[in-house]
């Protein structure tokens, strides 16, 4: 009987200790944060440097382009007979806004039936293509000049000279990375011999 008050007393102490633990306010989060010592009269510390702004996205791309492909030209018997391989190099200027681009290309093609060197200046009409756009359609058209020689049978150089005419191409193009450009196209160079061509090209963006 004499033990009961002691047990109640100990239980009361435990309950009170638990309740005080639960009711205790947590320490403020910066309670132990080390703060700089400020002495009256000292100048204010300089503000931290602002975050550098990211560079603006490029507004256009000037591209050095190299491409290769195959040309076709009809003869008296066969439509669209293979004429020979072709190589093209030049510059393409594309806007990253809703504006057409421009390209200047020079190419050579040749085979058993002749040889042709051509240069063209073309407008490039395409949906907006930015550096992150991997694929978009395009249409290129404009005038072309060609210096050509045509061989018919055993008669080499049956036709030769400088010609001027239309040039056009349709295809797909885009950017593989910030610097690498690609295109695949089919079109024609209507100067000199008059050839249809298919091309696959890679370009390098020469501006930032």
């Amino acid at each position, binding site marked *: 009987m004499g033990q009961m008050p002691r047990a109640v007393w100990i239980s009361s102490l435990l309950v009170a200790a638990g309740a005080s633990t639960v009711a205790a306010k947590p320490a403020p989060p910066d309670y132990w944060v080390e703060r700089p010592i400020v002495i009256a009269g000292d100048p204010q510390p300089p503000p931290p440097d602002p975050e550098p702004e990211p560079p603006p996205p490029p507004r256009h791309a000037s591209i050095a382009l190299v491409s290769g492909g195959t040309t076709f*030209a*009809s*003869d*008296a018997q066969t*439509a*669209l007979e293979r004429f020979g391989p072709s190589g093209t190099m030049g510059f393409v200027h594309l806007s990253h806004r*809703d*504006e*057409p681009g421009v390209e200047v290309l020079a190419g050579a093609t040749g085979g058993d039936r002749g040889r042709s060197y051509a240069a063209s*200046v073309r*407008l490039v*009409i*395409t*949906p*907006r293509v930015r550096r992150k756009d991997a694929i978009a*359609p*395009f*249409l*290129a*058209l*404009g*005038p072309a000049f060609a210096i050509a020689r045509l061989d*018919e049978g055993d008669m080499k150089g049956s*036709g030769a000279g400088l*010609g*001027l*005419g*239309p*040039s*056009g*191409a*349709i295809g797909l193009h885009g950017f593989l990375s910030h610097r690498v450009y690609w295109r695949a196209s089919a*079109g*024609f160079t*209507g*100067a000199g*011999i*008059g050839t*249809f061509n298919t091309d696959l090209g890679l370009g390098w963006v020469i501006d930032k």
Partner: protein
Amino acid sequence: MRTSFHTITSLLSLAALATLAGTASADDDLALMATGAWMMPSGEIGESYGGGAEARMADDHLTIGFGAKGLVGRTPALRRRDIMDVSFDVGLMLCERCESITPYTAVGLDILHITTHEPTRSVRGSTLGLSGHVGLMGRLGDDEWIWRASASYLGAIVPGTGEDLGGVTLSIAVGKQIMD
């Protein structure tokens, strides 16, 4: 004579390019369209088939197109022609309130390279042509898709033979608005 032809052709080409460049940047409604064409020349010349693409601006009642297409003479005939054509045309849409379909008419300037294949030889060269177009044009779905079907007459003198190119070309085109 040949030099002056080249000079005139160059100037016209550059003027057309400059015109479209200015138009495309100034106007917001430009579509890029794929084209299929079937030319039926007059005289004993085989038909030519081909395709290409065109950029077409269509406002309330004005339409301007600039395209390139290549046609190959594939019909077995005594004579056939390959035609490469860069064209610029300006036209009027004849029904201002018609959204999905409207008739239109246009006239155009064509820069052409024509190769005429004969049984024993092929003659080729470049020239200029003038074309007249009549057809229907409209929009599909959410108005971003544009279609066109037309018949045109292309007038030119064929290099090397001196013939009239003549004939009717039927063409259809479908494309999507790329600048809005």
